[in-house]
Each structure stands twice: as C-alpha cells, then as structure tokens.
C-alpha cells in the first residue's frame, strides 16, 4: 500500500458502524473473493445524506474505499452521492489502485442503499404528480412529455434530456415502462 490515503483509510477506517435510525441499507458481495460490504445511510428532509456508515469484511482496498465513500457522500444530496458511487474509476485513481473491482463493490453497496432510500421516497411522495426520479425530482408527466415531444426510445435518451434516471438508477425500470406505454406506432 504505497498510497497514503488508501493506507490511512484502511488502517484507520472512518464511519464504521450503522447510521442512526431511520436509515436505509445497501449490501454488495463478491462471488469471486467472498467479500461482503454493507452501507447504511440516513437522509434528511433536503434529500441530503446526513450520515453514512459501513461495515465490511473484505480486502484492504474495499475497506479503504468504503471509508472514503462515507466521507465523500456525507452532506451531499442523493443525486450527487449516487454520481460518486457510479464513478469507481475516479475513486480508484485517487486511491492509486488497480483493484477497481474492489472499489466497485463498495460503490455498489452505497448505490444499493441510495436506491432503497429512493424507492421509499417514491412510495411516500404526496405530490400531485407521480414522482419517478427521486434523485433529480422528475415526475412521470415530465418524462412522458419529453418522450412524446422528442420521440425518445431509450432510458439513456430520457436521462440526457431531463436527468431522470441519472442518479441512483432505481427508476430505470419505471422509465422503461413509461417508454413502452408511449411507444406509439409511427
């Protein structure tokens, strides 16, 4: 472990444990090496991650990545936190490690926790229009409108146009369903 950030976060991991309740949990495991990592996050009313905690049994890189991720996402809204979780490569470069897969495992557990939050937030949403993307607050109506005016056919296109689906990704299936429902014969 040449990199001092990696060594420091491995030997003295921050944010070990569970976030205070109510919290949302995510897990990721590797079938290759058997590592297991668990994230728990608390999200405040402004949709910002107020607490991020982890527990892990895995290699040094995964432990350090988990510790770093917790530090990075605290205070960020879920969209920004998800963006961090989706970029294992940048974190790996900062850690100067080639074990991107081990970093990815930590990222996946974080994303899993954010998705659990998003699913719950969507469920609880009391607004007039059904909320689809909880990371970027995009309603079903907005997505439908974009699909119809732009003739969109894929989730990626929807994300590009209105950000929906660009965060944790928990709404991709829902966007796909909206796409199919609006797939008008041309």
């Amino acid at each position, binding site marked *: *472990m040449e990199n001092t950030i990696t060594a420091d976060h*491995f*030997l003295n*991991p921050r944010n*070990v*444990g569970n976030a205070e309740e109510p919290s949302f949990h995510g*897990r990721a495991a590797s079938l*290759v*090496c*058997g*590592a*297991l*990592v*668990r994230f728990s996050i608390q999200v405040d009313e402004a949709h910002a991650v107020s607490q991020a905690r982890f*527990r*892990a*049994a*895995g*290699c*040094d890189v995964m*432990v350090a990545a988990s510790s770093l991720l917790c530090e990075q996402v605290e205070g960020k809204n879920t969209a920004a936190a998800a963006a961090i979780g989706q970029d294992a490569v940048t974190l790996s470069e900062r850690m100067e490690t080639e074990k991107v897969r*081990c970093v990815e495992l930590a990222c996946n557990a974080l994303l899993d926790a954010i998705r659990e939050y998003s699913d719950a937030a969507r469920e609880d949403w009391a607004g007039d229009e059904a909320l689809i993307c909880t990371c970027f607050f995009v309603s079903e109506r907005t997505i439908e409108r974009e699909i119809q005016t732009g003739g969109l056919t894929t989730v990626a296109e929807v994300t590009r146009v209105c950000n929906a689906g660009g965060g944790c990704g928990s709404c991709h299936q829902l966007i796909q369903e909206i796409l199919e429902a609006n797939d008008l014969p041309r």
Partner: protein
Amino acid sequence: MIYLDNNATTRVAPEVLDAMQPYLGQLFGNPSSAHALGREMKRAVEQSREQVANLIRAADVNEIVFTSCGSESDNWAIRGVLATRPEKKHIVTTLVEHEAVRNLCRLLENEGYEVTWLGVDQNGELDLSDLRAALRPDTALVSTMLANNETGVLFPIEDIGNIVREHSEALFHVDGVQAVGKIPIDLKNTAVDLFALSGHKLHAPQGIGALYMRNGVSLPSWIIGGGQEQGRRAGTSAVPNIVGLGAACRLALKDDGHARIEQLRNRLEDEILRTIPNARLNGVADRSKRLPNTSNISFAYVDGQNILMHLDQAGIGVSTGSACHSTTQESSPTLKAMNVPYPVAQGSIRFSVGRYNTEEEIETTLSVLPGIIEKLAEMSPYQEELKA
C-alpha cells in the same frame, strides 16, 4: 520483522551461509572438470548428497538427485512415472496437495489421464479406505503430500505406502517439501518410491531442491544434455546451492531446537484459542498429527487479508488462506476440502514458527493480535453472528 511465516520460506542459516561462502568466492570450478578445482567441486556435491540422504534416511546416496526446487521435483516424479508406464492412465492424489502436484494433475486430466481426487475430513485427514477403493489395475501413480503446507496436518505415508504396494502396481510419490527439516523422516523403512524436498524450507537458499528415487525406480532423464546427476538431469550443478542444502540437512539433523519451536507454537496456539472468542483451529486438534511448527487459525467473520496487513503494520509476518491475498483470487483449496464454512475460511491465518523465533516475539504477537481482531470484528458486516 517478527517472522512467523516459516512455511513460506526460511532465512538462510548462518551455518549454511558459512558453508556456501567459499563456493561463491575463491572455490570455483565445474564439477565435471577433471582438474583439481573440478574434483573439489565434485567432492562438495557428493558430500551434500550424503547429507541429504542422511536426513531423510535414504538407503543409498545415489537415490538423491539435485533439482532446482520442490516443484521441479514433483513435476519430474509425476511426469516421469507416467512416461515409464504409458499403458496406465489413472492417477490417485488428494484435493489438498500443493499447487505443484494439484495443478499438474489438473493439466494431466486434459491430457487423457483420469485422476481420483481423495478428499479429507473436517480435520484435514484422509480416509485410507477411500485410497484402497481408488486403486485400480491401471493406476500408474499415487501422489500425496507428507505435511500440508497450510494446516501442517500430516498424512500417514507409511500406511499409504503399504496399501499402495499391497493393492496395486502403482508407484508412490510423496511431496515432502513442507515436512523435511521439521520432523524425522525414514525413507529406508517406508514404502515410498519418490520423494520431493526443497532447500529453502529448511534454511538453505532458494533455488535448490532434490528428488529421492528409490533404487530400482528408473525415470526418463528430465533434462537432456551432459551426464550430470548420472545422466538423469543434465545441467551444470549449482554447487553453492547444493552445498547450502547439504549444510542445512546436517543442521536439521543435529539441531536440538525442534522441541523449542514446538513449545513456542503451542504457547501461541493455546493462547490465541483461549483469549480470542471467534478463533478456531483448522486441522486436527491432536498435535502429534500435525507439524510441530504450524498453527492455522480462523478468526470467523473477519477478513484474513485485513488481519495480515494489520499484523504487517505491527511488524509481524504471517500468511492467510483468504481469497484476495495474492495473485490468485481463489480461497484456500485445503480449507475448502475440509468443509470449513466460507466466512470462517476467509479469516484464516497461518502462523509458522521457525528456529529463529523467540519467546519474546511470541508474547509480542499475543499482545498485538487480540486488539486487531477486535477492531476488525467491530467492522464486520456479520456483527449479528459475532454477538451470538
């Protein structure tokens, strides 16, 4: 560094270095040369051969052939036996062999050989009735280790040899690499046909091994070239290394430190198992059935690689059976064959004591380890299991 990884390799003993030194300086020459320097080299090589033969109690010095390492000896023994009996296409070995044997036998499966892989029980021991049942008229070779490199569990090669001889025409090869220098070996009175050993496991340098071939067992030449090693393995003899191996064998035979090593190992093992709640021994509890220097202990639900690195940070060197520990991403095949549950196998640490360890080093290790395990247990996602 407190070095508790003596099954990986050992420090070259000062006595060995002293013996080798002249052959890296003023004493040089090719043992095949007829002049005085050549004769001196030849004499040194033959003296070492005798020292190796003495340590493993070979009946005849010419049963010893020098190789470059233990893996070479294993490869030669196995490939050699198969080449001499092309009509026999069956091999019996175990699931817990060192890679040198295991991976070669896997390869041979692709080359048209049928391999019977003997399993072990949860203590790491063989069931000899399995061996008997596996033997067939077309069995060319039985290959087992003497001591397991990970757990130190010993296989009863006397009994295995007798069964092989009584119930088959197969030859019996033993990978003795991890055992030589640690326990007494008596090949003269054991039904073993081939036996591999490696110098660096017993305080000789790396790059020297030997293969014992019982008189009457004739294998094809392994390297073709000059007539070295009675034409069995060509190539200029590595005289300094050979002298080092001889000196190491002499040292192992006369060394009275074996009992001390065992005491240190026992103290380490007893205290860890007594004081650390999630610690459990891998391998048979009966110490007479294990190498006297090895303890393989699992710390359930924490990661072995993490333990290793925290110990490393504290200046203590050990090994782990955890999957992510090295170039291979495979978790320990030995612990897998012993049916050790995955989260337990992942937390396995091998402590292997050697002749240069001190009581103080063992006490230091015992004072550092519990804190590391506690910290990692706190971090473990298997918290619920740990509380139970």
